[in-house]
């Protein structure tokens, strides 16, 4: 099977696919100095071999299109196929980013409406679509906060507050923006510890980054108080929108009082994750941060009774934190989000949060009934929730990792494990609204079956995976330590 080999192992010197490249008409006129001495060491394979190889490899992936994928914090919901076809229409694909706006009115109208709709969904005053992913959205948001303070001459705000449960991108972003990161503790019910917060704030506080519902799968109940405390000392509030899927149409970051947010459209707006991206991380801001939004932004004006659209950037936006990438952002991803949003409408957005939350709470109830231990038993789950498998680890020495690997054998992708780090042997489970009750029930059955295995034959679970239902003979548990100790990061003929 080709998928069991590396593409370089299929290579035969001298093979090429002449149907894809023009034959050169003459010798190259460039001096030898500029040229490469030997051709690049790419594989030399036929088009059929390429198709076969990468088709086979694809079959070695779990994905939403093939499996339940309850990966907490990642919102692995169904990515409507129509979003893909419409985003890939030739008119959109063929346009060069630097073409004049006359050739892009269809696209710009779409992006403009998307900006408006995201502002409405999130309750923010302005939106820029340009960040490439959540982390770049965070960068934009924190930069805007920095720019705001600096613009006010407020240059001593050097500290960014980040809850200890926060996603790693939050502290990393704050650091990238030049801030000192200060962690805030979480209380035993998963809410931010207000005492630590009060202790931490001061004139040095630039702001606080909050995820709500938090990565602990619960809604920050005292969010207004939190915001008041930070605002009080002149800090601004950043909302990490990775969990927006839990609240769309139920509450809005803008209404909570946040100053800047990012939205992972590859989560809440169902654009695909593509095995690691691309996503998009539009940022939304309150009125006072609008001048600082990253560029370009789409604006609309009337011309002879027709709506026309153009880019705002450079000279129009003197206070902007600038351009974060070479062009306009991940346009193709934004188009997919637009299609999704238009198909759902306002009521649909509420249905998303409603059913995502319903599914999470249902799964939580069933797993609790089945005897699993919930991290925050006194709390309502948001769109996700945390189990701790500490009892199982203690009693049968079968860890969250073992459960995760064994779930693969049952045909389920594993939930997020060991994040957030606060909860031992944790499993962060996010079913999303697009999964059926039947699928959730089967997942519970698998969890129960694995616990039984853990009791009766722990080695079975600890040795998993054994027989992942994948094409081309799956692998067993892979040795990550060896990978890191002796990095083999590219193919070298053996």
């Amino acid at each position: 099977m080709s998928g069991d080999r590396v593409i370089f192992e299929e290579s035969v010197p001298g093979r090429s696919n002449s149907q894809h490249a023009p034959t050169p008409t003459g010798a190259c006129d460039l001096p030898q100095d500029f040229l490469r001495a030997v051709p690049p060491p790419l594989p030399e394979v036929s088009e059929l071999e390429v198709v076969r190889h990468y088709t086979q490899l694809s079959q070695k992936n779990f994905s939403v299109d093939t499996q339940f994928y309850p990966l907490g914090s990642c919102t692995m919901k169904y990515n409507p196929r129509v979003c893909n076809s419409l985003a890939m229409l030739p008119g959109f694909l063929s346009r060069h980013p630097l073409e004049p706006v006359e050739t892009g009115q269809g696209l710009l109208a779409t992006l403009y409406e998307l900006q408006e709709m995201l502002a409405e969904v999130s309750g923010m005053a302005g939106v820029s679509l340009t960040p490439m992913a959540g982390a770049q959205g965070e960068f934009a948001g924190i930069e805007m906060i920095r720019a705001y303070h600096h613009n006010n001459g407020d240059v001593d705000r050097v500290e960014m507050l980040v809850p200890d449960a926060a996603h790693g991108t939050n502290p990393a972003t704050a650091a990238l923006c030049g801030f000192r990161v200060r962690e805030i503790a979480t209380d035993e019910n998963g809410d931010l510890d207000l005492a630590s917060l009060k202790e931490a704030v001061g004139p040095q506080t630039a702001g606080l980054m909050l995820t709500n519902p938090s990565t602990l799968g619960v809604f920050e109940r005292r969010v207004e108080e939190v915001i008041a405390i930070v605002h009080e000392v002149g800090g601004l509030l950043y909302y990490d929108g990775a969990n927006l899927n839990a609240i769309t149409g139920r509450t809005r970051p803008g209404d909570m009082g946040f100053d800047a947010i990012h939205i992972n459209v590859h989560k809440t707006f169902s654009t695909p994750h593509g095995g690691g991206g691309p996503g998009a991380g539009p940022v939304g801001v309150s009125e006072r941060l609008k001048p600082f939004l990253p560029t370009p932004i789409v604006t609309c004006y009337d011309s002879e009774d027709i709506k026309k659209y153009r880019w705002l950037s450079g000279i129009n936006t003197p206070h902007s934190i600038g351009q974060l990438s070479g062009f306009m952002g991940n346009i193709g991803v934004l188009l997919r989000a637009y299609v999704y949003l238009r198909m759902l409408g306002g009521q649909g957005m509420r249905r998303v949060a409603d059913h995502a939350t319903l599914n999470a709470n249902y799964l939580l109830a069933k797993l609790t009934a089945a005897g699993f231990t919930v991290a925050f038993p006194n709390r309502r789950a948001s769109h996700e929730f945390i189990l701790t498998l500490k009892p199982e680890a203690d009693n049968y020495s079968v860890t969250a990792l073992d459960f995760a690997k064994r779930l693969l054998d049952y045909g389920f992708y594993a939930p997020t494990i060991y994040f957030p780090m606060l909860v031992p042997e944790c499993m962060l489970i996010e079913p999303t609204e697009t999964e059926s009750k039947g699928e959730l029930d089967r997942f519970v059955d698998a969890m129960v079956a694995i616990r039984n295995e853990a009791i009766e034959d722990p080695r079975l679970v600890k040795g998993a995976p054994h027989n992942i239902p994948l094409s081309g003979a799956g692998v067993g548990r892979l040795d990550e330590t060896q990978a890191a100790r002796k990095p083999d990061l590219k193919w070298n003929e053996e």
Partner: protein
Amino acid sequence: MPFIPHTPQDVETMLATIGVSGIDDLFSEIPANIRCEPPKLLPPLNEMEISRLMTQRAALDGGKLGFLGAGAYEHHIPAAVWQITTRGEYYSSYTPYQAEASQGTLQVLYEFQSMISGLTAMEVANASLYDGASGTAEAVLMAVRCSRKKANRIAIPTTVNPVTIATIRALVSQQGIELIEMLCTEEDGRVDTETLAQYNDEDITAIIIPQPNFFGQLEDVDIITDWAHSVGALVIGMVNPMALGILKPPGEWGSQGADIACGEGQPLGIPLSSGGPYFGFLACQKKWLRQLPGRIVGRTQDRSGKRGFVLTMQTREQHIRRSKATSNICTNQGLMTVAATIYMAIMGPKGLANVAYACHENSRQLLDVLTAIPGVERLHKGHFFHEFVLKLELPVKDVLQELLDRGIVGGLALAENYLLVCATETKTKEDIDSYGAVLADIMGRSES
């Protein structure tokens, strides 16, 4: 309910299991005064309606005969590339955290790293960054981490794409990094190797060398690289990967090679798409591996010795290292690297070289055709890859508008009278002649 599988009966059963009487109860922890009504959005459309709308909008866009480059390039993309890339298993999976159930993506990324390493002649490569410009900013941050110098001074020639420079500025200025502009020769539109010595005492941490540069010109990469190394500066080669089908790869520049190679991956099988998604690539010498940002895939084995692939070197990353991470990047441009890997595999060394040659040939032809027109001449001397700058006797803005009215996207206006023009392998002789004819007509009319 679009995309929601529950029947009313399902909902009831589930609520009963949870022990609440309605969905509203599930949101009881949200304080009442911040609850909201469903947002007011444009009215929902069914799939048929949205399809019609988007088809109409797409029909308004693109489809012109284009001679624009300036960082994004129209190339032929084999049909197989996207038919395979959009298979659900690649399209709808996450970052491959559970390696055993993600071998498809992981092996592709390993192959991608191998190909990028090969193309750039660098020892290791990561599994993508957002795009070329932001990736270059990451390269700058990386160089600063690698260097032992105190001052963080990055030399950037004015032959680097100005948007890239702006992006770098936006992304790194918080780190106390100083960007030092290096002027280029007017005649050549490239770094003046004669005057490099001027910068000897500038305590430069690293230099960015673009190849080809923003004006399409080929830089004297060997000389600049050797000079940089002689003053203890690291070399960041910012390259067009398509050009590397024929051009000397950064790993072989000068006597030691560049330290870091980066660039915009779009030419490798990614459609223009009005600007994205594209991807940035980043490669380096092995000694800098621990400073390399972004995902990295490594080969390992399972308990029975069977080969497999995993995400590795994760202690560099934000989800482990948090505020001390090499970068905040998390979601990258994964699917684009699948496309690029398939593209490179189909093209192979010969295909890539042939396309690169064809781009060069076509742009030379275009140059000949256009500069034969009175009032049109080339601005620079020296060698170029597939772009060049013209000097027009008429205001470029007006000329571009006239060209556009006749279906041609003529290039990028650099200044009042300067026009950056590109021809890739997608342009036929007829395309080039038709540009020539229309431009001649425009230039001619103004004469009379």
